[in-house]
């Protein structure tokens, strides 16, 4: 795993989550700032998938392939669905829903990090 990208994604997703929570607390809908951050995270996740597959193919570590690749692929669908779900809600609760989606990314990235580290 390319650790700097992992930590970057963890940090940016958490920042986006905090921002979404602030929006919800201030009774605001999601805005382009949080959607932009989520978009950057998504691009990073795609890069992570490519890097992960290349590294998995070339490693002799005892990494659980189905789980490792599963987490890499699964992480890609969270934010688009979360953003869609948030955009379709015309209240503060949409921002709250996007915050949940953002929170999932650090959890998945830490699981990936653990799977690779064994």
């Amino acid at each position, binding site marked *: 795993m390319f650790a700097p990208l992992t930590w970057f994604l963890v940090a940016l997703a958490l920042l986006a989550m905090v921002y979404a929570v602030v929006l919800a607390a201030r009774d605001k809908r999601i805005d382009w700032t949080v959607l932009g951050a989520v978009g950057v995270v998504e691009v990073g996740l795609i890069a992570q998938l490519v890097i992960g597959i290349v590294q998995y193919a070339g490693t002799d570590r005892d990494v659980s392939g*189905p*789980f490792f690749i*599963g987490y890499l692929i*699964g992480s890609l*669908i*969270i934010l688009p*669905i*979360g953003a869609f*779900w*948030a955009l379709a*809600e015309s*209240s503060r*609760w*949409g921002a*709250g*829903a996007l915050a*949940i*989606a953002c929170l*999932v990314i650090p959890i998945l990235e830490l699981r990936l990090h653990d799977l690779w580290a064994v």
Partner: protein
Amino acid sequence: MTDPAATKHGPGRILIAVYGVFALAATARAGVQIATKFGDAPIAYLLSAVAAVIYCAATFALAKATVVSRKVATAAIAIELAGVIAIGAFSYAVPDDFPDATVWSHFGQGYGFVPLVLPVLGLLWLRRTR
């Protein structure tokens, strides 16, 4: 009778988001477990699959938010609550039958006990939007 669509709006938006995460996580987990090492712990993996189906049903039923789907959601979430309590208790009583964790083992400890809290919130939310 209030609008059944109320189920998917407001705080329901967050509830459904969390349900969606669990539907995805449980489905992926059960799929990988059954596909790669079913023989290791068939009971636990079948229960993982049952949990996955229930989470998916609850997510879609809550999100659809019609009069009928609310009934489906209520049933799914009631089964979910019974499941997490029963599996939680069994996993402490007969740990040998659960060599590998399911979503509901130890009352959802591996998922920060969210699986235990979620059905309670779900039923309260359905009641509130009735």
